[in-house]
């Protein structure tokens, strides 16, 4: 049997095209954790996650909410003294967990991403994320959005169209998508 690749190496492969330095450059200084606006709501801080990846704590990393709590604000990225694009690493973890269906139960992030991409593939356009939820099932946050909009009179005033617009060349657009993602009828 061949030597198995470590989780650390798996993530390095997911990030082979990153524009920052590899996470092996991490100094464990904690600047990212000190900067992250969502850190209090993460199971492990960004610094800890990097350390855990390097020590191959695969199950613990994947089962944490950390990477799905990243808002992609890139504050950590611009401050990292080792030049690591940490927000990009969070995206890599999101992809890894989506492709393998291995993420913490009860998270909204994966469903939201899925629904959002589906909406765009079907119409070419989107509502902004907060509105998307109103029209996509499965989101427990739908009520919150509805409430916020109602409280501010937005829905009642008819300021919001009921469905996203569609682009004109939708069929060609979808064929374009299928050249990148080789799935679905080509019609």
């Amino acid at each position, binding site marked *: *049997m*061949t030597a198995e690749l470590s989780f650390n190496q798996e993530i390095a*492969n997911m990030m*082979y*095209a990153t524009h920052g330095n590899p996470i092996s450059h991490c100094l464990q200084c904690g600047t990212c954790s000190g900067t992250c606006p969502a850190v209090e709501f993460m199971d492990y801080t960004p610094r800890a996650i990097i350390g855990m990846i390097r020590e191959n704590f695969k199950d613990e990393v994947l089962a944490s909410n950390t990477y799905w709590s990243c808002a992609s604000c890139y504050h950590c990225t611009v401050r990292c003294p080792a030049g690591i694009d940490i927000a990009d690493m969070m995206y890599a973890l999101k992809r890894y967990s989506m492709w393998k269906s291995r993420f913490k139960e009860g998270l909204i992030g994966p469903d939201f991403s899925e629904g959002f991409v589906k909406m765009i593939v079907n119409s070419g356009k989107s509502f902004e994320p907060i509105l998307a939820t109103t029209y996509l099932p499965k989101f427990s946050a739908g009520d919150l959005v509805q409430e916020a909009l109602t409280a501010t009179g937005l829905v009642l005033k008819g300021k919001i169209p009921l469905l996203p617009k569609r682009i004109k060349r939708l069929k060609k657009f979808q064929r374009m998508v299928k050249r990148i*993602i080789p*799935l679905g009828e080509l019609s």
Partner: protein
Amino acid sequence: MNVQKRLIIIDDDPDFVGGIKSILERAEYQVDTAYNPKDGFQALQARRYDLLLLDIMMGRGAEGIALARKIRKDPKLREMPVLIITSVREQIAFLFPGQAVHPNFVDVDELVEKPVEPKLLLEKVSALIKAAEEKHLQPQ
């Protein structure tokens, strides 16, 4: 005596690579591995391979498709048989649920979906290598 055939697997899933590598080695193939498209392409340029086993979803996304297209444009690599082994349908199942994988705009030789039966894998591999050799021997 038959020269041992050399194959390369470009796939990011270590469990899957480990599995098929040992199947292929037991069938007397020499097997190299690469776990991302960049390392994979470098390996392909460094030496000649009789067959490539290629994954689709790696790194940023459906990179296997991009790599297969690049190989087909490369004068030195275009004759090499390419067998795509993928679980793209499972990996992003939600996008076009229930619909087929269709890399028919990429000129690959064969596509199978994971998980792969060892017997089927070995049949496909030897058939593709044989077909490539025969094509090569034919007078132009």
